[in-house]
Structures are given as structure tokens and as C-alpha cells.
């Protein structure tokens, strides 16, 4: 961790009204929950739909994508990364600092609203809220690391990330059973299932498979991103 890099990254991410745009995600989740908590429909189904499908399924990947690529891809894109790379700092420390900021911001904007809307919708019964909060916590961190790597590797990080998060996880995952094994969302669910019990949250991947996969992806993405940043070439836009 380098405090100066962290401060600058945070400012780049949240400064100049950009923070307000990110705030849309938690606001939306809370708004939908507030409206739904007034409805008479089955509370369990509502919570699964809102926290599972909308929150964990759509908002967390998009937030992870915007934040994960936002901490480094924008700097690489406009070329200002060279000023940072010219400083006597190991490249891996730049990556870990930026990753820490990304995870922190993702958690702030997704875990807190998930917790609040869970309490609003379902109270503290069955460990439901705990389950989804843990799932968002785990998935948020893994998404941040994965998308940060994409931001270093390719100029089309946002598109590649979207293709993974929305098309692979949602569309292909819906039809092809096996695709769910390679889904960050399902790994998060598996961890949450182990913590909160399977009445709270279901997962298609076993806990024993999810934890190694999560560790491999998160640590591997960080290491790979450090290596890639060490040999970064700034290419022009094609």
C-alpha cells in the first residue's frame, strides 16, 4: 500500500461528480427494496429476486467492472500512467494499492446497500441477509481483481468484462449448467452458503471447489496484472 497512490486513485475514481454516478447503484437497490417491501408478495421470493438477481447478478458485476477498470484502465488510456510508473515504486505495489482501493470502493457501494436492503426486505431471519452480504463481499473482491487485470491487459477491458459478466454469467450460465462452475457469482454464493446455510442462499458450485477457484482467480489476477504492468507498452489507439 502506498498512501499517495491510494489517494490519487480514489480521487480519480470519485472526484468530479463521478462518485455521484457510482452512487446510482446503491440508490437503485435501496429504492427497489423500499418499494418492494411495501408489496404483499412472498418476502422470500422478493428477496431472492432483488438481492440475488438484481444485486448480486447485475449491479455487483457492473460496479466491479466500472471500479476495477476505473482505477487503472482510464490512466493507461489517457497515458497519464507513465508519470506513476516513472516513480521509484515497485509495480506490484501500484497494483496492490489500486486493487485495495477498488475493493474498498466496491464494498462500500455494494455491501452496505445489500445489507440495508436485505434488512428492509427480510429482517434478520434465516441468515438470509448474512448470506447475500457475504456473497457480495466475496464476489465484489474477486470481480475487482479480475477486471483490474483486464484493464492492464487489454484496451477493450470494459467490453471484455461486460462480455464475461453479462453474457457468460447471465446468458450462457442460464442455459449451460457447466458455465456456472466458472462464474464468480456462483463462487460467492458457495462461500455464502457455507457461512449462512443453504436455506438462505443456494449455489451450484461446491464450497470445496469455490474457495480454491476464488483464491486462484484473485491472487492470480493480481500477480498477472503486476507482471503485465512491469512490461507495459503504451500503444496508440487503433
Amino acid at each position, binding site marked *: 500500500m502506498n498512501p499517495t497512490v491510494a489517494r490519487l486513485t480514489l480521487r480519480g475514481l470519485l472526484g468530479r461528480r463521478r462518485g455521484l*454516478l457510482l452512487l*446510482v*447503484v446503491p440508490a*437503485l437497490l435501496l429504492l*427497489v427494496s423500499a418499494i*418492494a417491501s411495501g*408489496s*404483499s*408478495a412472498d418476502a422470500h*421470493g*422478493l428477496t431472492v*429476486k*432483488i438481492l440475488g*438477481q*438484481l444485486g448480486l*447478478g*447485475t*449491479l455487483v458485476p*457492473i460496479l466491479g*467492472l*466500472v471500479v476495477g*477498470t476505473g482505477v487503472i*484502465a*482510464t490512466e493507461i*488510456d*489517457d497515458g497519464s500512467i507513465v508519470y506513476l510508473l516513472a516513480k521509484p515504486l515497485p509495480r506490484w505495489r501500484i497494483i496492490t494499492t489500486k486493487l485495495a482501493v477498488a475493493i474498498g470502493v466496491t464494498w462500500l457501494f455494494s455491501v452496505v446497500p445489500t445489507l440495508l436492503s436485505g434488512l428492509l426486505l427480510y429482517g434478520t431471519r434465516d441468515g438470509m441477509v448474512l448470506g447475500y452480504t457475504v456473497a457480495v463481499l466475496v464476489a465484489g473482491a474477486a470481480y475487482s481483481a479480475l477486471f483490474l487485470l483486464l484493464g492492464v491487459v487489454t484496451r*477493450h*477491458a*470494459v*467490453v471484455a468484462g*461486460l*462480455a464475461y459478466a*453479462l*453474457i457468460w454469467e*447471465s*446468458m450462457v450460465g442460464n442455459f449451460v449448467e457447466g458455465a456456472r462452475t466458472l462464474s464468480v457469482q456462483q463462487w460467492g454464493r458457495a462461500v455464502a452458503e457455507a457461512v449462512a446455510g443453504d436455506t438462505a442462499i443456494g449455489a451450484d458450485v461446491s464450497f470445496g471447489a469455490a474457495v480454491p477457484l476464488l483464491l486462484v482467480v484473485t491472487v492470480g489476477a493480481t500477480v498477472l496484472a503486476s507482471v503485465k504492468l512491469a512490461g507495459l507498452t503504451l500503444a496508440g*489507439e*487503433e
Partner: protein
Amino acid sequence: MAQPPDTRSADTRSADTGSADTGVIHDIGYRGYSGPRLGRGYATRSLFTQSLRAAYGLGRSGKSKVLPMLVLAVVTVPAAIVVAVAITMKRDQLPVEYAGYLASVNLVIAVFLASQAPVLLSRDLRYQTVPLYFSRPITRTDYVRAKFAAMVCAQLLLMAAPLLVLYLGALLGGMDFSYNTGHFLYGLVAAVLYALVPTSVALVIAAATPRRGFGVAAIMGYLAVSAAVAAVAVGISDPGTTGSDAAQWTSLISPTELVESLVNEVFDLGVGLDRRYAPGGLGIAVFALVALALVVGSYRLLLTRYKKV
């Protein structure tokens, strides 16, 4: 006529200053163009074709062709598979509805839109080439018109391709001609609407930021989040009661769901519990008006955006 340089030493009073002697204007024979000019319309049409080609990466580097061609394949290949399966099974009807097929590949089409709309608009803003365009005969309106039309056409081509595959396959497989033609036309109407409504919103977002990555994320974020919210709202409402009808109104926040609902209700398509529709005659009117307002409003916003570049 090129003339030899005229050293006007005779009439310069340089005899005593000396250094002014070196200041000489040569006439090297530049001439104005006096032939026919192709004019504004030609320039606008050129901008349109260039932008349309750029949307598919044609005439650009190999790398920028990857994504558009990949999307085109992802959208078209399943249609070909559907047709092949239907023909080998000797079905007398396609297992999918033309408009319904578009709705199911919606997400992929949205990815194309999100990645290519900034290619057309954000880059010109970022490298400040927009003022260069306006130093030519084309006006700001022409620029907006050409870019808008190019993106709409790119989207339309992307959606027409799988529809055409389905239609030709159905005809070759000897399926009912009039039914398929009618529903193919419904599909085309849906394609035109999909190409107009979400695209116009995306172009406004793309024109607002000179950063390509941010534009992509913003467009996709808006389209995906609004569609997810609408889907969840319909999903959590109780079917069978009046709540179901009321929840359909949430489709208004999402351009893609809005088109899907409108098409489904107008042409009476789609079945099942998760069918999206515009509720009743009032629904059709409101949905159509909102769609129109989105397109016209976005176009006006683009015009105002480019008033001061």
C-alpha cells in the same frame, strides 16, 4: 503558370539596410481549384459511409474488426443452427418467433451498441477532430445526421442478418410462406425499433464523454441496469392480479424492454408468464409516445451538444 522567382531588388530600398535583401516572396504557382465541387450532400454521405464502415471495423486495423465480427457471428450463428435443426427435424414451423429471437439476443446487440457508439462519437471529441469537420462544407446538423444514421444502420444490419437467415431457412425448408413472411415483417419492424430507440439514447451518452472506456461502461450500465430493474419488477409482482399489469409499466425505464413490450402487444406475439407487453390500448399509446420522445429528444440533444464544440 509557374514563374521564376522575382527578386525585386530593384524597388526595395535595401541598398543601405542589407539584411532586408533576404526577404523574398516566391511565387511557386499555387492555384485555386475552380472545377466542379461535390458539395455538402456528398460530404455528408461520405461521412455516413465511413462511419458505417467504422462501426464494423472495416478499413481499420484487424484488432478493431474482432469485436463487431464476433458479435455478428454470435447473433447469426444460433439462427442458422435453429434453422438447421428445424429442417432436419422436418418441423412445419420455426421453433422461435422472429421478434422473439431479437429479444433473446438483446444483450449481445447492446454490447455491440455500447462498444461502437463511442467509436463513432467519442474519438472525434477526444482528438478534437470535430472542428476539422466543421471547417469543411458540412454543417453541425449534417454531422449529427450522418453519425446518427450510420449507427442506426449498423444496428439494423446486425439484426437484419439473423432475421434473414431465419426467413430464408424457413422458406427453403418449405414452411408456410404467408405466415413466415408476415412474421418476418413483424421482426423487421421490431429490428427498426430496436435500432432506433436504444441507439439514440446510447449516442447521447457517447457524445457526452470524450473517453471511450467510460462511454462504453455508461451505455452498457444504463441499458443493463434498467433492463434488470424492469425484469425484477415484473418478476416480483404477483401474476394473476392487477399487480402484474401495473408492473409492466416499469418497462418504460428501459429502452430495450420498451421496444419488446410494444412489439409484443401490437403484433400479439409472445407467450408465457414472463411475456412483456404494453398494457392495453393506453399502454400502446404511451409506450409508442415514449419511444418517439426518446428518439426525437435524443436527436435534439445531440444537435444542441454539437452547437458548441
